[in-house]
């Protein structure tokens, strides 16, 4: 410790200021996180039934159309008609189901069932039997 005492004093003062600033930054960050969480809760308004139905419908139909389109293009390119179209159409159907499951899972996550409501038998009920 070869530092002169006056720099020592200034460092202590600077450290004090830094600590104060750090605590202020931390509290501001906490406030912002709370704000963000509240915003994310507010930002999921209930979609109307029509919008929900159309969303699920288009997700399903679009996947089938894309599957059939790819299959048709494969047939055009490779001359394997009609196998590409048939197989990819079924694949598109599967992808449509997958889309619908994802959308519905998302919607359920956005608006969870109220606590205490009966959601049908689950794993615990099975175990009791």
């Amino acid at each position, binding site marked *: 410790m070869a530092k002169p005492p006056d720099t020592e004093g200034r460092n202590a003062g600077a450290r004090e200021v830094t600590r104060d600033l750090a605590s202020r930054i931390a509290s501001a960050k906490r406030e912002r996180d709370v704000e*963000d969480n509240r*915003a*994310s809760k*507010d*930002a*999921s308004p209930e*979609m*109307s039934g*029509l*919008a929900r139905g*159309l*969303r699920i419908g*288009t*997700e399903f*139909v*679009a*996947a089938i*159309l*894309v*599957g059939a389109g*790819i299959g048709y293009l494969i047939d055009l390119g490779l001359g394997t008609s009609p196998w590409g179209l048939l197989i*990819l159409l079924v*694949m*598109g159907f*599967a*992808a*449509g189901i*997958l*889309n619908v499951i994802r959308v519905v899972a998302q919607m359920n996550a956005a608006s969870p069932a109220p606590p205490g409501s009966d959601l049908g038998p689950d794993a615990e009920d099975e175990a009791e039997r």
Partner: protein
Amino acid sequence: MAGTDPIHQFVISDIFPIATIGGDGTEGSGLHFAFTNSALFMVLTVAVISLFLILSSSGRKVIPGRAQLLSELTYEFVAGMVRSSAGTAGMKFFPLVFSLFTFIFVANMFGMVPYFFTVTSHIIVTFALSMLVFITVIIYGFIKNGASFLKLFVPAGVPGYILPIVTPIEVISFLSRPISLSVRLFGNILAGHITLKVFTGFMVMMIGALGALGWGASILPLLMAIALTGLEFLVGAVQAYVFAVLTCMYLNDAIHPSH
């Protein structure tokens, strides 16, 4: 009868031609470029949004006036949507999401004004918007994550022997996104405007066919048309919101590709 034809409102007409490339000079040959009524309303939409945002935020008051409050609320609404769906890392795409949201919203609202053209009732417009999102997701996903962006198509925890079946399904599911995104917006707006026109067309036809009795009977379609007008404003706003939210979710896939 053009007055009650429900499809007539979607006709695109030239306002002034710009150029024709190729073709032999006859009508309908070659690539024809023109400033159409669709283009006019796109320009109007962008102009209204830009003017509103520039004018309302030019005051920069600490305590905002009504107009400034409205533009700040729009900002907060879209920013909250981006943060909650794509995380804070998604905020670099805020300009894209904000532009898409305000463009679709204002274009839908313009469409509700009588005699105005609805830009979003043409699938090529909505498809171009959704392809913009789709291509952004692909390019940014590969730039940010490199080849590991392809993990998006390989769900975690799936045994290897099922992968040949699951991966093509995931790929089709991914490719169907721009189509479902564009068809949803286009379908909602098109169907809404056609039903509105059909019901108001009923009134005109009833009065024409039944005379004095028609005046009384046309109250029923009038009530329906009033209700549908309110619904259409709602649908226009909700569809702009849905488009923006889904854009955020797809961008989220590009930022964090693991399922």
